[in-house]
Each structure stands twice: as C-alpha cells, then as structure tokens.
C-alpha cells in the first residue's frame, strides 16, 4: 500500500521534468522503446509513479538508469508529455537521493549553488597562488598531486558511500538476497557497461545512434586515459615523446567531441538536447574547457612560452578543481558511475531470480 504524494510532481519538475502530467497512460512510449522488455518495462510505469508521487517505488527502481535517452518516446508521445525528459529528471533526482551529503539535490535545484561553488574555488585558488608566491614549479607540483588526492578522496568520501546507498535502496531494502557468487559472476557486466555503454547501441537502430555511441565511447576512453596520462605518466613534466603525443591526442579527442556535444545542445535538433539543464551545460562545457586548457598548457610548455603565460595554467587548474570538487561528485559525472552500477545491480537481480526459480 502506498500513499499518494501530489507534491512530487512539482519536486521532480525542479529537476527538469516537463509536462509529464499530460500523460494519459496510453503506453506508446513503452511500446516504442527499444530497451524496454516485458520484465523491465518503462518509461510509462515511471511516468505513472511520478504522477502519483510514489517515491519509494522510484527510489528502489533501477529502470531510470536502463534508459539511454534516445528520445523516441518523447518524439512519438501523442500528448507531448516528454517521457524521455522525465526519465532524465528521475536520474537526476535519484543521484540526489543516493548522495549522502545532500549537495547534489541542492546543485540540481539551484543554479546559484553552482555559481557560489565555482566562485569559492576561484577565490581559494587565488589565495593558494598568493600563499605560494606564484611560484610556478611549486604550484604545478602541488597541482599534479591535487589530482591524485582529489580522485582518491572524492571516491572514498562521497562516491563509495553513495554507491552503497544506491545498493541499499535497490537491492537490500527490496529484500533481494543474492549470494556472493552472483555478485562475482555479474561483475564483468559492470566493467563492460562502464567502459563501452554497449546497451545504448540497442536503442533505435540508426546511423545516428551508432555515431552517438562512438563519440561517447572515444570520449570515455579519451577522458580516462588522459586522467591516467596526467596523473601517472605526469604528462606536463614528461620528456617521453610517446607520452607527450598521447596526451595531445587524448585532450584533442575530449575537446573536439565535447565541442560537438555543446553544439548539439545549442541546436536542439534531437529530443534529448531540447531541455538542457544547468547540470548538462556545466558537464559538457567544463569537459571541453579541461580538454582544451590541458592541450594549450602542454603546447605552451613545448613552445617554451609557459613562463610568461602562467595564467593559462591557473585557468586550467581552476577548471580542474571545479570539475573534480563539484561536477564529479555531485554533478552529471556521477551518472557514468551510477548507470554502470545500475546495470551491474540489474544483472545481479536477474541472475538471482533465475537462481531462485531453479531452486
């Protein structure tokens, strides 16, 4: 038995949902969705839960993460109720529920919170620069270590507890008792989906889908390997030609692909780009800025003009810190993590069901 919460519609609209209350439950969205199956059917069910405000049912569901937003449902909705955008908003809402700090929800709902965060970071960096007496070597050295520390602490302090919360809501609380063996056998799915986004290829079969997947794929690979190159191969101080060229290629991939992403959001030709939220803009723009500023920093180093243009490194560092402290733990970056874990959990639930039936 669930109690109806008529105020949920307004809450979810603050996370970006548009007009979903127009839904008259025809189910066209579910029928047309290439990813929806008899066992895991969406988005109509999620639209219905949102209308009725059944928060517990949404919180325990992995379905919002199973959608890759091809936009077919929104295009074909006879009521223009935007089921696709609702699924996107539910993902945002879910990340705010998984996040123990509550900052995610604050940032999604208030653009001002983002801006305050960004400004605080700029102020902090200026303070740090002054304290360091604008000593380039020291700042770059600390900047390099910042990356390692940031990755580690963000993961341990924020992302890991959030993933455990997600696991609690979707597996433990609904009473799914899967043996460890199932976790181990399903683990390959986590890696597969995290690095390839293979499932998105099952969306509407078209060149557009495949190209979108390819862009996303090389972006993920580019991003992760640039992270590795800068942190572990110390790209900015490296003397190895291989490492230097590798870094150039990776950062170029990032800013070229994200530039295309920004363009698509401006042009709004696909359903998925029509309703960009601040979190969407910040994600693509900051990724673009990171790529291009990293590229430029290395270029300036190679051209030996870095000494006179140290502001560039400071700009790169600003973007990096804002990215690592705000967007990665509380912004859209988490979708990358939660989605792959959702796929992993879904696999566990499915395998566990098979096991239970066998018994």
């Amino acid at each position, binding site marked *: *038995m*669930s*109690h*109806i919460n*008529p*105020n949920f*519609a*307004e809450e979810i609209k603050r996370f970006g949902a548009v*007009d979903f*209350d*127009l*839904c*008259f*439950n025809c189910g066209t969205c579910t029928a047309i969705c290439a990813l929806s199956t008899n066992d895991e059917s969406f988005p109509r*069910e999620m639209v*219905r*839960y949102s*209308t*009725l405000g*059944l928060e517990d049912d949404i919180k325990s569901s992995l379905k919002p993460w199973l959608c890759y937003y091809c936009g077919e449902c929104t295009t074909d909705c006879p*009521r223009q109720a935007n089921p696709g955008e609702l699924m996107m908003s539910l993902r945002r809402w879910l990340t705010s529920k998984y996040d123990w700090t509550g900052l995610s929800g604050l940032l999604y709902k208030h653009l001002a919170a983002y801006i305050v965060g960004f400004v605080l970071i700029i102020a902090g960096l200026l303070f740090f620069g002054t304290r360091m007496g604008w000593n380039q070597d020291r700042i770059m050295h600390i900047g390099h270590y910042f990356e390692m520390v940031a990755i580690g602490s963000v993961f341990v302090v924020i992302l890991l507890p959030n993933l455990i919360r997600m696991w609690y809501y979707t597996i433990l609380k609904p009473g799914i008792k899967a043996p460890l063996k199932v976790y181990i056998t399903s683990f390959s799915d986590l890696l597969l989906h995290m690095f390839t986004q293979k499932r998105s290829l099952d969306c509407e079969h078209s060149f557009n889908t495949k190209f979108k997947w390819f862009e996303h794929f090389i972006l993920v690979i580019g991003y992760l390997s640039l992270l590795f190159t800068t942190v572990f191969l110390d790209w900015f101080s490296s003397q190895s030609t291989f490492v230097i060229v590798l870094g150039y290629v990776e950062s170029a991939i990032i800013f070229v692909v994200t530039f295309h992403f920004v363009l698509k959001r401006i042009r709004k030709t696909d359903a998925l780009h029509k309703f960009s939220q601040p979190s969407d803009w910040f994600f693509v723009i900051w990724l673009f800025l990171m790529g291009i500023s990293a590229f430029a920093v290395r270029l300036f180093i190679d051209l030996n003009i870095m000494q006179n243009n140290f502001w560039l490194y400071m700009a790169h560092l600003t973007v990096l810190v804002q990215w690592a402290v705000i967007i990665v733990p509380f912004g859209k970056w988490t979708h990358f993590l939660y989605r792959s874990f959702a796929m992993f959990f879904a696999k566990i639930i499915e395998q566990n069901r098979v096991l239970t039936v066998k018994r």
Partner: protein
Amino acid sequence: MKQRIGVYICHCGGNISDYVDVQQLGKLMAKEDGVVISKDVMFACSDSTQKEIEQDIKEKQLDAIVVASCSPKLHTHTFRGVAIRAGLNPYNYTQVNVREQCSWAHSDRPMDATIKAYGLIRAGINRVAHSEALESIEIEAQKAVAVIGAGIAGLRAALDLARMGNQVYLIEKEDKVGGRVLTAGKLFSSGENGKDVIEQLVRQIKQMTNIQLFTNATLGKVSGSVGNYYMDVNVNGELLKLHVGSVLVTTGFDFYSPGEGEYGFNMSDRVMSLQDFNMLVEGSNGQLMHNGQPVKTIAYIYCVGNRQSKGENKYCSRQCCTAAIHSSLNVHEKFKGVKAFHLYRDIRTYGKHELLYEESSRKGDIYIRFDEKEPPVVEIKNGKPFITVKDYLTSKKELTLDADLVVLVTGMVPRSDSTQISELLKIPIGNDKFFNEVHPKLKPVETVIKGIYIGGACQGPKNISESVQSALSGAAKINSISRKGSIKPEPIVARVDADICAWCNKCAEVCEFDAVKPIESSGKMIAEINISTCTGCGICAPVCPVNAIEIAYFTDNEIESMIDGFAEPADIAPREEVKETASTGQSKSLAGYPKIWRTIAGAMDDKTLTIPEIAGLVNISNHEATWNVMTMNRYGFIEAVGLNDDETHYNYKLKR
C-alpha cells in the same frame, strides 16, 4: 375486380434486363387475365415513359397499373403522380420490385431471377386487380403547442415555436423556470453563469405575446390526437383547459442521489455531490472553505450511480466527466494550491470537452483509474475522508490518499414523476426508464404517439447544448404540422366491419397508438378506429377473433390473390444469349498492356514470389517492380497471397 390493367416492366438501362428477361416477361404478362397492355420499357421513371403511361391510361381507359422496376421506396410517389395526372386513383397502382429483389440479388442465376420476377409481377397484377380506390384523409390541426417543462430545453423550444408563429403554452410544475441550469453556476464553454442564461431567455420570452407561461402547473387528463389534443392543466389549484395541435415534452432529469454510506455519503459532511460542491465553490471567495476549514485536497469519484453492470442504471450519463473536470478547473481558477484527485472508470470528455481534460492534466490533477469490481473505499478517519483505491494504471497497486472533500460525480436518472407524465401522454419508456423515441437516429424526437414529441434530457442523459438541440428539433417537427394547418395521413388505416364486430377489446389492447376506442352503433358496442392516429401497422387485424378488421390497401383479398399469383408455376424459355458475368476461369489476356507486364507474368509463371524476387528475375529495380506489380494487382492480373516466411514482404501469384 379491375379488368383493364396496364403492366410496365423496366430494363433500368440494363440493371434489370442484363439478368431478367424482361422482353419475354412483357410478352407473357400480356396473356394474364385483365391485362390490356404489357410493355417492357428502358426507363420507367423517365419523363417520356411517364407520359407514355399517362397516355395509355387515357387512351386504353386503364383502371389499374403495375410498374415492375425498382424498390417502392424509390418511386412510389413518381408513379402515384402518373396515376393522378391521368385521372386514376393512386391506390390503383402497384409497384413490383424486380431490381433489388431479382436482378441485383440473383445476378449469378439470371434464369432463376427471371422466374422470380415472373411470380412477383403476377402477384402484383392479381393485387392491383383487387385494389380499391382510396380517398385521402385531411384533419384540421391546431396552431397551438403545449411545452411541458420550462427548463433550458423547454424555454428555448417555446421561444422558437413562438417565433415561428405558434401559440405556445409553457407548463412548469415548479414556482420558477430554469430547471437545472438555474443552479449550474459557470457553464462550459461560454463561461456564462447558468442563472444569467436563464434570465436572458426569460426576458426574450416575456417579449413574445404568443407565449403563455404557467408556473406551479401540473398536467391533468389528456385526450384527443395529433392536431387536436385536449388537456387539463392545474395551475395553482385552478383548472385550465387547453386545446393544442402538438405537445413537446421537455421534463428533464433528476440527479442520482447516492445511497446511505455509498462512498461515505451521509457519513460525513465532507462527502458531497458534485452539485452541492459547485454551490460551495460558487459561494466561497479567496479561499475554498468548508465548515470554516480550508480545503486543500479534493477527491472526485466518478460514475456514481451510473454504468452499474449489475445495478439499476446501466447507461453512462456522458456529461458528468466533463462537468466534474470543469468544476475542478473552476476551482483551480478561483483558488490557488488546491490538489485534485479524479477517481474514474473511463474518461468521456468527447468533442472539444477533451480540451478540459488536457487542461486539467496540465494543472497537475491526478487521474486514478479503478474498475467497477474494485471501487474505491471511503472511510472517515478523525473526521476526514481517507480513500483506498486500486489503481489500474499501476498494475492494481493499492493506493491511499487523504482528501479534505470527497465529491461524488453522480449521473442522471429519469425524473421521479416521469411515469406519471408517461401515463398521461402514453409515451413509451425505454429500458433505461427514460422516455423512448421511435428511433434514436431516424426519428430521434418523435414518440409512437403522433403529435407528442420529446426533447432534452427526459429522453436520456444530455448536456445543455444537446438538450437544447433536441428540443429545437422537436420544435421544428411540430412546426411542420402546425404550419400547414392540417394533416393528411395516408388512407392506409384499419377498418372495422360494424356488422361483425362485437367489441371484445382485443384490438384496443394491442394497439400501440391508442387508435381504437369503443363506440355505440346500432344498439351494440363496436370498435372505432381513429384515422388520425392509426398508422395502418396492421397489428389489430390478426388478433380479431371474428375477422372484423382489415387494413385498407392490404385487404385479405389482395394478399391472398398475391400468394396465388406468385405460387403458380412459370413457363419460361431460357434466353438465347445469357450474359456471362462470372469469371471465365481463364487467365486474362495481357495484350494491350505494358510489355513489362508480360515479362513479369512470364517470369512468375506458377510461382509464388515477393516483389524483390520478381525484381531480381526480371532484372528491374525494386521500385519499378513495386509499381508494376501493384498496378497489375489493381487490374486483376496478380493477387496477393499472404506474407512470406520472414513476414517482410507479401507473396504474389498470377491470377488464373
């Protein structure tokens, strides 16, 4: 017995003659008893043939004619006109239908069609030989109308009838006019207030000198028939006698009143009907208040007292969905921050009312669908309604909700005193207990009693505009009678043989039109037929134990002679050249069609192929193959024979 009969058999330009051997029939009919002239004609209905028949009647002094052509529905009046113009009584003409009943129905068996036509025409000749000349009846009709019920339908119809020049007596049982609309509040889609609409109508009515309005008036005894009804009306205890030509009944409906405890009704004052809720909304300003407490959530429960598959009212009242949603929107417009739940079975906001539904969804109203088998349960907890409902759109998930108010959206039921009216005016009552029209589509405002019309919601649930439309159509029907000043019914009515009749009342019992009454005649009681109300339906004739009743134009003599005529065996020679219509069984020739068609046909041979396969065999593009195969299919050279195994293409085959 008629001795000089003319028979005309029509070719209908081939429609008949392609199958029925009309020439031979023409020759054969000339030999029948009493037939003076028998012809086959190309088009019996054409001007020249009509003139030819007129001439024949005059020259050959024909006393009866038979036209064997199409359905009497099409040309009875045409040939009656021919008879009248030639000085023959129109009832001495008989129409025989050899097109719809012979050539069209039996085009596959031309010989049998001819034999059947032979029998039918012979039956027609026999009948017309026994036909009588009938004189038409004319009855004077009063140019006055009684409109019963001064709701919006009655008011509007009275106004129109008066404008068309009729004296109108408007009879209302309440002390004020306006009925349900008076208290309906804001109306969709004009946004006017019901009260204003009624006041405006009353102003217009007061300007008309030929409308007399009686309030506090009840209907008493009614007698007479179409054109002349005599009715007693009791106005404030005073008896008034009216003499009118027709009656328009617009007595309206009652709202279903929920039973004790039905969805918590009468268990708490927070459960109320939609009408009471509308009054509450109308009376509140600034904030929606109920008994001094603010109302923030409202649950509307639909289909209350309607669509009960096992209960009294099986029908849907069709306007309540719109009414409830309209009320909900009024609430949103007037008060901020009110949440609405609509617990419905099906939403029926037809036509542009759909806009209201969309608007309400947009405003965030939550629609919860339940099934009749599992209706919502309303409990009163701490003085507030608490609802449990199984939502069919969330796989029957059990949901609970609190509501400050529960609004029961009740349907329409017939007026509690409608049986009284129906007894006085002899209006039949349908399965749903509303007044019954003759036919919902063909005669939507007429009752089986001539001159008594029904309009508005007394004949079934309707919204305001539908009520007014039906009442106005009743007004138009009434005006078509009163305008002429007289009625000319067909003389095809029942006749009583006064010598035989001994008044046993059997005929009066079966008569649906109240046309039989006993009267005294030469010292005994006999049945008398009121020819202005008799429709000649014939139901009285077979029930008469002494066979004292017969129907003019359908006398026993006529009918029996027809049977004799039809039953006699026909002696017909097969036509030399029987037109072949069925397919020849041979594949059609492709000569004269595009060359590519012959290539395709050659390639297909006996095989079953899809379009891409055909394209491959003939070495043309899929596009070209599609176009040609489709056209060949259209011309009947190729046929589609179902999907292929992969269900990706259709299979085609050459037609043999």
